[in-house]
């Protein structure tokens, strides 16, 4: 995956992000186009939620809810070019809604990385360090890093989604990256 191709109008090879033609078709009621977009987007949302610390089952459940929200709100999308930012806004809002509904104890249970059996099984893999580092970052830093460095959103897109000034987003993204590096340095002293 990594920094995704962000070609004008989206991917032309059926991948992510969807092309403007696909998005317009979905907005026009083309179920095949909508199904394709959601099928491609679902693993990305699950991945995002997992990266934010949700357990596997919870990440899938919230991702399903996010897809439903997208189906409902797609007609409100003003233009195809705004799709990806909108997509991540819906995904992030769904997670935030989940946070609001959960008690503190429930949140700790849902977001505990080390207590997840699946994570324990993978504790020795090559992702263990980055997972541990993410776990030590504040939630907002995690989100900004993910949206910027993994999903490749622009500072403007992130700023509008997080209700921040673009300049503040740049600063926050840089600070989050430095924090991650500091944590990583401690985890990998060599």
């Amino acid at each position, binding site marked *: 995956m990594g920094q995704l191709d962000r070609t004008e109008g989206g991917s032309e090879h059926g991948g992510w992000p969807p092309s403007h033609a696909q998005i317009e078709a979905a907005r026009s009621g083309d179920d095949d186009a909508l*199904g394709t977009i959601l*099928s491609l987007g679902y693993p990305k949302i699950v*991945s995002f939620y997992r*990266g934010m610390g949700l357990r596997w089952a919870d990440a899938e459940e919230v*991702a*399903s809810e996010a897809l439903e929200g997208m189906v409902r709100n797609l007609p409100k999308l003003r233009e195809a070019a705004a799709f990806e930012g909108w997509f991540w806004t819906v995904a992030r809002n769904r997670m935030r809604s989940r946070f609001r509904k959960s008690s503190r104890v429930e949140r700790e249970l849902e977001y505990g990385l080390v207590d997840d059996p699946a994570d324990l099984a993978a504790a020795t893999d090559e992702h263990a360090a980055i997972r541990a580092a993410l776990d030590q970052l504040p939630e907002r830093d995690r989100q900004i890093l993910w949206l910027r460095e993994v999903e490749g959103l622009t500072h403007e897109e992130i700023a509008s989604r997080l209700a921040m000034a673009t300049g503040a987003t740049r600063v926050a993204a840089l600070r989050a990256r430095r924090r991650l590096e500091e944590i990583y340095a401690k985890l990998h002293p060599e």
Partner: protein
Amino acid sequence: MRDPIHDLRAYAAHLESEVPAERARARAMAAMRAPSKSPRRAVVALATVGFMSISNVALATAADPAAPGDALYGVDRAYERIGASLGIGGDHRFERLTEAAVVLAAGDAATALSLVQESLSGLLDDPETARAMLAQLENGADVSLLQSQVRLMVEIARNSAETAGDDALVGAANGAPGQDIAEIARKIRESVDLPGQAGQDYPGENGGPPSTTPAGSAPGGPPSTTPAGSAPGGPPSTTPNVTPPGGPPPITTPGATAPGGPPSTGDDASPSDSRPSKNTEKTSPTTGKP
């Protein structure tokens, strides 16, 4: 030092690859089929329902006692249907019987039969309610009218079978042929014939004027296969020796209003007024056929 951003992207790709494509497709399809749960839409719906409930409660109350022919009868039935669809509103079968009595008194036997059969349609499929209804009839001191109506519907159904050639009644019976109506009449008796209670009279019924026809004494009158009082479970319901004081008001029998119906003669021992036991029900009292 390893590049944390590189590892972060690799980790994200790893997480993404853990989601099977089939599951992603299934979740996408499920999301597309999910019913809309827009909070705004729900609020609007709730507000609408609330407004309608408040503004229409007076209308519903006014319409409740309406009978066929009344201006509010359509409103009454509409509210009942809405209530039934929501699983509320109580049992309207009694109300149908009351309406049947009203229209019958007005001389509209066809509509009365239609209403009675509507009331019975649920009764026949719901023996528990049938028993409860009968128990209420048997135990209640103020249900003489309902009791009379139950008796009335039996009579209507039976007479309908005898007048199977009457197009108006057959049509009112939802197109059922005469033989089917006789079958309905048989089921009616079974449904109100509680185990261990066969042969008991409808309380209150005997105090009223007799409304049935002696066996073979009137044209169209259904011959009985069981002599009155001669067999367990099949006693006549109008036997004088069980008449309680203060019987119900006079019953308008279908024989007086329905074409071809048996005339009311006032013969208390009339077998046609009896409630045959289940065993005797196997033979139609009107046709003698099984």
